[in-house]
């Protein structure tokens, strides 16, 4: 009798089967390897940033006790609440008072290395609480940039020696500097802060979001739901896709040519920066929005139309809510890109040295990535750590922004 062997039980089939399994194992291993590699790179990046950046949140300070009862500074609480308070304290000789007590406590040589703007910290403390003028208060005042680099083992030999001496006497210390988050740009790395750039970034992002999101979503809705399919809409589609791929500095040139010609007095303002970035973000939102709208099943539209909903009601009651999570995903990507963008903002003048945080959308400002770029360009070694610290602030801002968007997305996500 001729025994029939099923083709799935032959030796060659078994061999092929083994090969298939081997291919699957290989694929899994490669995928896992890729993920592990990216995680390792990410961890390395975060670790370096954190290690470098921690120093940026600190500064070298010297303790100076000031006996205000002898200093002859007068501060009326009502006057201290007014804008000119710092100037009034300066006119009363506060800088001299500070340097006098500094030389008393530290000696002439060390007192000369107290930061030139250190008295402003004292002024801020007085303005915050005028009652300290009745007692002796010890301030931790920032040193000059030279002494700070001497402390880090850099800079001139004299400064290193002085830093060594003061350190041995316990007069010099590197302390956590909460003011870094409250101050703005300065020429002395000891005096700089990130608040100005952070606020500038927030205002710019606000303008970007308010402009790009509604325009992008409405454009996507119109193109998907209303526009007829013809050569013109094809052309618009191709243009939008190309727009999303245009190098960002081109948008900067556009902002410079159009927005600054229309509003020449708003140079460096978050309003113009936000508008420029909105141009860049909008195509990303349109593209992701159209995909999200396409993914809404036609049966939902049919169902709504069939009970007599008008096309606008179909769009706003059914299509948009269902597409919103997808649209938000695109918005996150677009906004994250806009937040990290430097080049277009350089073109419209947001690289200026701005020592005060912006008051509003129209006052001069800079943004976090531009601030990082500017600091990384500084010669003074003190800026290296400050740059890393600014990068950490930027990453945290990004994290908060994305976290918020993901929270919103999950909230709107419907189960099917």
């Amino acid at each position, binding site marked *: 009798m001729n025994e029939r062997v099923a083709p799935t039980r032959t030796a060659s089939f078994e061999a092929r089967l083994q090969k298939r399994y081997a291919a699957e194992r290989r694929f899994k291993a490669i995928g896992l390897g890729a993920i592990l590699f990216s995680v390792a790179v990410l961890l390395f990046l975060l670790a370096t940033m954190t290690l470098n950046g921690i120093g940026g949140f600190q500064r070298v300070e010297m303790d100076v006790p000031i006996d205000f009862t002898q200093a002859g500074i007068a501060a009326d609480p009502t006057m201290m609440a007014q804008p000119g308070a710092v100037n009034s304290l300066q006119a009363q000789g506060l800088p001299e008072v500070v340097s006098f007590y500094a030389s008393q406590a530290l000696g002439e040589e060390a007192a000369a290395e107290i930061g030139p703007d250190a008295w402003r910290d004292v002024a801020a403390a007085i303005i915050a609480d005028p009652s300290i003028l009745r007692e002796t208060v010890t301030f931790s005042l920032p040193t000059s940039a030279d002494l700070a680099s001497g402390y880090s083992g850099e800079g001139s030999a004299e400064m290193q020696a002085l830093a060594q001496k003061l350190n041995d006497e316990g007069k010099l210390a590197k302390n956590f500097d909460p003011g870094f988050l409250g101050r703005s740009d300065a020429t002395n790395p000891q005096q700089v802060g990130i608040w100005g750039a952070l606020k500038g970034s927030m205002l710019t992002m606000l303008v970007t979001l308010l402009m790009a999101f509604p325009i992008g979503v409405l454009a996507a809705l119109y193109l998907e739901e209303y526009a*007829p*399919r013809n050569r013109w809409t094809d052309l618009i589609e191709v243009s939008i896709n190309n727009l999303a791929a245009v190098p960002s500095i081109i948008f900067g040139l556009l902002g410079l040519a159009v927005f600054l010609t229309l509003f020449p007095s708003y140079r460096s303002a978050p309003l113009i920066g936000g508008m420029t970035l909105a141009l860049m973000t909008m195509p990303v939102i349109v593209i992701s929005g159209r995909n999200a709208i396409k993914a809404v*099943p036609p*049966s*939902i*539209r*049919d*169902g*709504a*139309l*069939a*009970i*007599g*909903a*008008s096309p606008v*009601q179909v769009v706003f*009651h*059914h299509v948009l809510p*269902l597409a919103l999570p997808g649209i938000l995903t695109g918005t996150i990507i677009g906004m994250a890109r806009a937040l990290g963008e430097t080049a277009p903002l350089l073109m419209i003048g947001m690289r200026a040295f701005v020592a005060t945080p912006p008051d509003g959308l129209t006052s001069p400002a800079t943004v976090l990535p531009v601030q990082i770029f500017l600091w990384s360009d500084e010669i003074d070694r003190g800026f290296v750590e400050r740059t890393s610290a600014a990068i950490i602030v930027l990453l945290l801002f990004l994290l908060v922004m994305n976290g918020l968007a993901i929270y919103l997305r999950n909230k709107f996500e*419907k*189960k*099917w």
Partner: protein
Amino acid sequence: MVTVVHENLETTDAKMRARDVSVFYGDKKAIDEVSIDIPTEYVTAFIGPSGCGKSTFLRTLNRMNDTIPSARVEGEITLDGDDIYRSKMDVVQLRARVGMVFQKPNPFPKSIYENIAYGPKIHGLAEGKEELDAIVERSLKRAGLWEEVKDRLQDSGTALSGGQQQRLCIARAIAVDPEVILMDEPCSALDPIATAKIEELIAELNGRYAIVIVTHSMQQAARVSQRTAFFHLGKMVEYGRTSDIFTNPLEQRTQDYITGRYG
């Protein structure tokens, strides 16, 4: 080629009346000069092989084909004597008067309550919460779903079983109190028990609404309808009492289809 219409039909008031209706998709003629009266007293079934145009014709009755840019309708369709394709016809109002249930259950991904209340809300049929509650309850009762869902009206409509979802869609159509309900193969995605429930429901709704059902299942047409139209290749071949169409067809093609020779 003219439709063979049985001569033993009782005269009825036609709720909807189609005369020489042709539908084109671009250059392709999908429906060829169909004429039919849709009464309120009887359930009308459209049967025929796949692609014969019965769904296309159904969708012309509430102008759902308007959403397809290349579709074009010729001929005349009237609802209570008004031409529904005249330029001044309000499509939104038409669809509120001629409801539709689709092949695949398509509840909105909202709560059961919201699914039913949506239609009455956008048409302003209810004043105040109590009236809306009453409409929701009445619609669900008519659709035979009330007992099953009355304790979980706030649950998502998509969490129901397939049969329940389809009855929810029927309740949704009923909620705006239409005059005609079009059903496009409403049971093709359902199991036999759910199908039986929908068929029972159709029998109960008969008389209150003019009902047109498109179906692939000849047994279903025989069970739920009193009038049957047989479609083939875009033409309406034969129209008559359901019992006559199935036992005593006049056309050879109808005979071939119902005996299972093709389709």
